[in-house]
């Protein structure tokens, strides 16, 4: 039998009307009040209980206290500067001059009225200026790494460097663009810090505290000489390159620069004229890199409709299936002429000479086998493999694979306690290797213009987005091989980890069902070769 409906709102009302039920009514009333109060209390407490806060890895980095000061870095081999004094830095005023004494007095009074926000800012920048500017660059890459939305007619707009804040925002910081930006900024910072080290040894201006003992050192001190400031040299070079690469971010960059300068001036390790000379030197060195960037052919790397057609025809003539965009509406291929961009480690002829042989023909048995393997990974994802795919995806809206390797490198460099100039040198070589990896990889992609697995077999669904460019070779594999090979040289204790990380990043593209095995294997070899070239340079640049 179906029981009677129990409908408390009715039932309790009836109860309330029953006189001889007063006692239980009172009891019930009391209980209800207690529950009601508890409910309201919970409603108030629920939003405030356990404040939600994130512990971010990069906010835990300690103040940089280098194991070696590298004060002799003024003789290290530069990348674009012909000599460390190519950008002139005027001699500082004497430490006995009234102007300088006033500068020092400013530090004393700033330190005396330090506020909590100053302390936070100081703690942030104390972890290392080169590190923080690398992080800022990664953030801007992630911010700008979004493909433009199509026009109403189905064509796609191209970002305009002269109008960066109008949609589509300039730049679309895709992996090749990002690799180039990371490389230019890192290389410029390195050359600038070599120049700064040269001038510090030349002018030998002592630490502010030597002249005014009331000045406290709020961060660890490296070296005895301060003019020009290496922190502000790195900042000046970074701001100049980032302003070129992200022209819509001038205000933001200026704010970060001001915060950086505030922190360093407050730290007691640098006077205002040390800072100003450093910033000017950084900008001056950056100008040399900017001049090169303007002529490195990156501006033409998007190609033209004629080029896109030509690539397609070439693949057809070779008897292959040409690459097609899997987006709707079809998006032009990403930076088809990026393989012609001038890199740092290889010249254009060497890029072509090092181009790998063609991938397996779409008509070959080998291709069918590789395609079947991709389908297998598409249909049978495990949670573990999907986690690997997502960990390394670094797709739209992220800092890209080169950014990921910068993050990995920085976490380790913090533990290595490199000097600022060694930080800069290692990041420069790392990013030069990845920039050249992008060039070689893009050269191969557009030399062969081969299809992605999902284009050949629509049953292949992917566990991450399909990048809008040909498959061979895998960018992730090339970047990762280059990064892991170079990092193994500068942090040998982590060599095994880098190798397995690179393998995982590489195979993640097969697990994600967006690359064939040939793409990842050949890409990895190509990357290893480029990482090796960065190592060769490291062995001869005077830093080891």
């Amino acid at each position, binding site marked *: 039998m179906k029981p009677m409906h129990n409908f408390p709102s009715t*039932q309790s009302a009836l109860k309330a009307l029953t006189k001889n039920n007063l006692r239980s009514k009172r009891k019930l009333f009391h209980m209800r009040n207690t529950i009601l109060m508890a409910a309201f209390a919970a409603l108030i407490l629920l*939003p405030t209980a356990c404040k939600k806060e994130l512990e971010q890895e990069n906010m835990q980095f300690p103040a940089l206290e280098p194991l070696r000061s590298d004060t002799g870095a003024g003789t290290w081999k530069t990348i674009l500067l012909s000599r460390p004094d190519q950008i002139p830095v005027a001699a500082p005023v004497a430490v006995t001059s009234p102007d300088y004494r006033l500068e020092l007095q400013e530090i004393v009074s700033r330190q005396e009225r330090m506020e909590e926000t100053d302390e936070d800012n100081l703690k942030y920048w104390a972890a290392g200026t080169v590190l923080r500017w690398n992080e800022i660059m990664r953030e801007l890459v992630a911010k700008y790494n979004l493909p433009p939305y199509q026009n109403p007619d189905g064509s796609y707009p191209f970002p305009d460097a002269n109008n960066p804040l109008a949609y589509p925002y300039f730049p679309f910081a895709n992996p090749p663009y990002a690799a180039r930006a990371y490389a230019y900024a890192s290389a410029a910072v390195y050359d600038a810090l070599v120049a700064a080290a040269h001038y510090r040894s030349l002018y030998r201006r002592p630490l502010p505290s030597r002249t005014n003992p009331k000045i406290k050192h709020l961060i660890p001190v490296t070296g005895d000489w301060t003019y020009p400031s290496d922190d502000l040299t790195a900042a000046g070079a970074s701001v100049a390159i980032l302003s070129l690469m992200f022209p819509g971010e001038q205000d933001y960059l200026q704010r970060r620069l001001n915060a950086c300068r505030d922190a360093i001036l407050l730290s007691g390790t640098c006077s205002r004229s040390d800072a100003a000379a450093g910033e000017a030197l950084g900008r001056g060195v950056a100008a040399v890199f900017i001049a090169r960037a303007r002529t490195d052919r990156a501006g033409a790397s998007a190609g033209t409709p004629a080029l896109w057609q030509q690539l397609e025809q070439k693949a057809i003539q070779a008897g292959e299936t040409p690459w097609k965009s899997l987006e709707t509406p079809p998006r032009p291929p990403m930076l088809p002429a990026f393989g012609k961009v001038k890199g740092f480690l290889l010249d254009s002829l060497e890029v072509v000479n090092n181009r790998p042989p063609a991938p397996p023909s779409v008509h070959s048995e080998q291709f069918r086998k590789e395609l079947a393997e991709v389908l297998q990974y598409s249909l049978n994802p495990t949670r573990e493999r999907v986690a690997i795919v997502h960990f390394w995806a670094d797709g739209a809206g992220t800092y890209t694979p080169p950014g990921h390797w910068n*993050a990995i490198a920085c976490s380790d460099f913090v533990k290595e306690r490199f000097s600022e100039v060694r930080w800069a040198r290692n990041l420069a070589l790392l990013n030069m290797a990845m920039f050249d990896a992008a060039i070689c990889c893009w050269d191969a992609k557009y030399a062969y213009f081969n299809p992605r697995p999902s284009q050949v077999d629509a049953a292949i669904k992917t566990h991450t987005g399909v990048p809008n460019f040909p498959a061979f070779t895998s960018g992730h594999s090339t970047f990762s091989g280059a990064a892991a090979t170079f990092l193994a040289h500068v942090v040998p204790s982590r060599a095994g980890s880098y190798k397995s990380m690179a393998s995982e990043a590489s195979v993640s593209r097969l697990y994600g069902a967006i690359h064939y095995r040939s793409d990842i294997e050949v890409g990895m070899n190509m990357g290893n070769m480029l990482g090796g070239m960065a190592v060769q340079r490291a062995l001869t640049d005077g830093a080891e």
Partner: protein
Amino acid sequence: MKPYFKFVLISASMWISIWNPLHGQTETDGLWMPKRNFCGGLIAGASSWTHYWEGTLHRNNQNIGTLSSSFLMAMGNYGVGENTNIIFSLPYISNKASAGTLAPQQGLQDLNLSVKQYLGGRNWKGSTVGLTAVGGVSTPLSNYVADFLPLAIGVRSRTLSLRLLGDLQRGKFFATASAAYVRRASIEIDRTAYYTTEMVYSNQVIMPDVFTWMVRTGYRKDPDHIVEFFVDRMNTLGGFDMRRNDMPFPSNNMEQTRIGLGAKWALGKQGLSFMGNVSRVVAGRNMGQASAAMAGLVWQFAVPRKTKTYN
């Protein structure tokens, strides 16, 4: 089948499942299971959308086409006391996109458990009014991927919720209004850095809490025979907008207003009830504009008291 199932919160496109989509079965009605009665059943549903809100911009996406979601949910409601019910639900969800290459996702989503406590009521100018509190928890039951919206089947956040509900019956007309605060725990994703409005170096994502309210009204002859109209609204308290042409993220600022029609009808005296509803999202933010329909079948029976057995 005492409880009137309110599948209403099933927002079928599950990017939409901001808080557990199936949260609050019977948590938003003013109906009760009698003591020691159990009611359980299965509800199936489907939803789809082709348009969504990227921030506040209403758009479609030809690389997703139509996002379809279907689910099958086991649910139950037990009367532990005359004024106290315990409710659970457990959905299996399957999502797929009609265009693009992204792989479909499916799996067991989150277990919901709630306690519904009647607080009191009275007759008032010829109507009967009652007040109820519902406390709930939910937790993911499988290791599904949250950071793959809009295909992800849920956002994986463990939740703690508290709902206050008022119910009014006058003749065969009823109206129920409720509001809930949903506390959401941080989630872990598979990557160690992500961009919101700034770079975050962590695999943890702070999830904004959710506030939701609902009003339902219509014909209610008795708890087994209902035809109703409903409107509900939910919004996250914080979160960020998707950028232009970006993908959604679990901690987006999500909002949704939905309207719907529902009915419940008991067949005979066998303890069997049918129920169903249709709904349509009419406004939103960082969510799909889903149309949804679902239907269910539930069975109610009295749980026998323990009796001694003799061998």
